[in-house]
């Protein structure tokens, strides 16, 4: 009974959020700089996809990855190569992005996910660095000179044409994001989600009650790689030009930062963190040269004072308010 009600509340949250996202451009359109805000929100949507996938891996299954930019890059370059080098449909690009990431992640998962803690962090970081060296040296990716990507044509529409001012791409990105978020929300409430949480809290205990640890770890690693790949493909068609530094350690770390700041053990936390950190650099622009410094400072303070992330911090406050003042 209580489960049912909670489920409904979760669905209502999701519906409200979807409505908010769909209505936002109508409000922003009234501002002068509306287009600019919408383009920032597109990036927020792309980052949200990747971070939600990463949260499934890190927050739910408890496996660190400091190399997810590799999958993001594989996705982006898949789309670029399929549409630009071969002139094929972008949908094939998306398919290749998903397929390739799934295969790569599947074969990497077994050896890498045997490691734990710092060792896993290091191995995934190494994986990311190797991929980023490949992106900047392989002839097919255009090397360090980069590669240009065609705009996205879907159902006869150009999604990001000049006169439509990003609105189309905003809806495309966020509808994909909403679908993926919905899938993730369902997943964490399922048998799989419970298994992942069990692995997170104790691998030995999970194993002893019959959870196939290696199997689930591989699955969630592949899933998070696919999320990153989809994000990468959307990014490729949005930015229309790819160069290797976009897919390096820098981005991997930003992704984890988004997860940590938003709250890793919740899908909403991932969305929140990705949105905040995608917008933060735009606000930090006013600090000009000091932006990196302040970015680092914000990160340190957020981690010291909200180690569970913003979503948990807000949740905690809400609980306190509802319970009223503590009577001693």
């Amino acid at each position: 009974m209580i489960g049912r009600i909670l489920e409904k509340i979760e669905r209502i949250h999701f519906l409200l959020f979807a409505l908010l996202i769909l209505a936002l451009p109508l409000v922003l359109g009234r501002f002068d700089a509306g287009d600019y805000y919408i383009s920032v929100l597109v990036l927020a949507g792309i980052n949200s996809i990747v971070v939600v996938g990463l949260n499934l891996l890190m927050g739910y299954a408890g496996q660190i990855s400091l190399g997810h930019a590799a999958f993001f890059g594989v996705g982006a370059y898949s789309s670029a190569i399929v549409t630009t080098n071969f002139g094929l449909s972008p949908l094939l690009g998306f398919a290749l992005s998903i397929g390739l990431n799934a295969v790569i992640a599947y074969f990497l998962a077994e050896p890498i996910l045997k490691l734990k803690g710092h060792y896993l962090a290091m191995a995934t970081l190494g994986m990311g660095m190797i991929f980023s060296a490949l992106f900047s040296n392989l002839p097919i990716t255009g090397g360090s000179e980069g590669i240009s990507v065609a705009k996205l044509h879907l159902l006869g529409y150009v999604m990001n044409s000049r006169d439509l001012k990003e609105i189309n791409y905003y809806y495309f990105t966020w509808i994909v994001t909403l679908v993926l978020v919905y899938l993730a929300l369902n997943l964490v409430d399922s048998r799989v989600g419970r298994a992942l949480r069990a692995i997170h809290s104790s691998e030995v205990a999970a194993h002893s009650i019959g959870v196939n640890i290696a199997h689930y770890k591989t699955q969630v690693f592949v899933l998070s790689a696919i999320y990153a790949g989809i994000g990468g493909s959307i990014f490729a068609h949005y930015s229309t030009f790819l160069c290797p530094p976009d897919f390096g350690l820098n981005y991997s770390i930003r992704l984890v930062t988004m997860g940590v700041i938003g709250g890793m053990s919740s899908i909403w936390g991932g969305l929140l963190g990705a949105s905040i950190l995608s917008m933060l650099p735009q606000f930090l622009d006013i600090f000009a040269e000091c932006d990196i410094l302040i970015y680092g400072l914000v990160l340190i303070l957020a981690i010291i004072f909200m180690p569970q992330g913003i979503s948990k911090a807000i949740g905690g406050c809400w609980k306190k308010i509802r319970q009223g003042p503590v009577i001693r």
Partner: protein
Amino acid sequence: MLKKPPSFFGKGGGGIFQIGSSNESSKLMNFADQLLQYLVNGITNGGIYALIALGFTIIYKSTDIINFAQGEFVMLGAVFMSTFYQHAHMNLAVSFGLAVLTVAIIGILMEVLMIRPLQESSVVTQIMATIGASIFFRGTVMVIWGRHDQFVPFFSPGEPYRFFSAILDRQYVWILALALLAMGGLHLFYEKTLYGKAMTACAANKKASSLVGINVQTMVVLSFGFSAALGAIAGGALAPFGMKYDTGVTYGLKGFCAAIVGGLGNNVGAIVGGFVLGVVEELGAGLISSSYKNAISFCILLAVLLMRPQGILFIRSGERV
């Protein structure tokens, strides 16, 4: 915020040649000569990597934290040294010493202000905090010193030495000498002094150490100081080649690879790992392709992690990986 990873011994700095570049002189060198040159360069890089790896190891042993800001200590060492030399007009030795001291204090402050509140947090949180610190250091240096390389003159200017057929830059000799001195000093400290023995005891078992009256907190502070100082020594030795705010990242990552290759939490391993990584990387870059130099170190890292996570040395580390 890794921009383009700077090539090791980046731009600037006179008298540095690029091995693996296709200029005429390197083609004329015969294979054995080339090999010797790679070895010389590799061992020099290895000295630097070993110092950084030692820094990682010392902090890891005392707090179980991997300090991602280790590379920034290297950068800070070089930047402070150049400031003391260029702006305060001190001589090279004094500015080197002061730079090491300053960075050690920064390391201690980092422990007191940031690491201590996070002692009970998860691995991810701690990693992210040290990454935050490294971003903060980089940002601060960029604001104060700008985006340019900071230099000091070569410690002993002059023609490079020749070691058989290999060219041995004078600064390389300084780098190796300083690295060996630092390692020797650290060894003496650990073996001969009471504080050193207390630190070893803390690394082995914190509870037991505090029961016999060792102040564990002091030892953690000391380990951050030492680790930062080791990074700064590496930075000072590299300062003549120029360093700017984002140069430290690559060094930090390489030092990290070295620490893992030698077996995390093992001082001897860190040193061996540093030299092994330096030589293998240089050989790989020279014989395969210099553009894959970074990838080669990380391939070594992955290979070691997957096949011998306890490190290449035959020492039991006790921790199950």
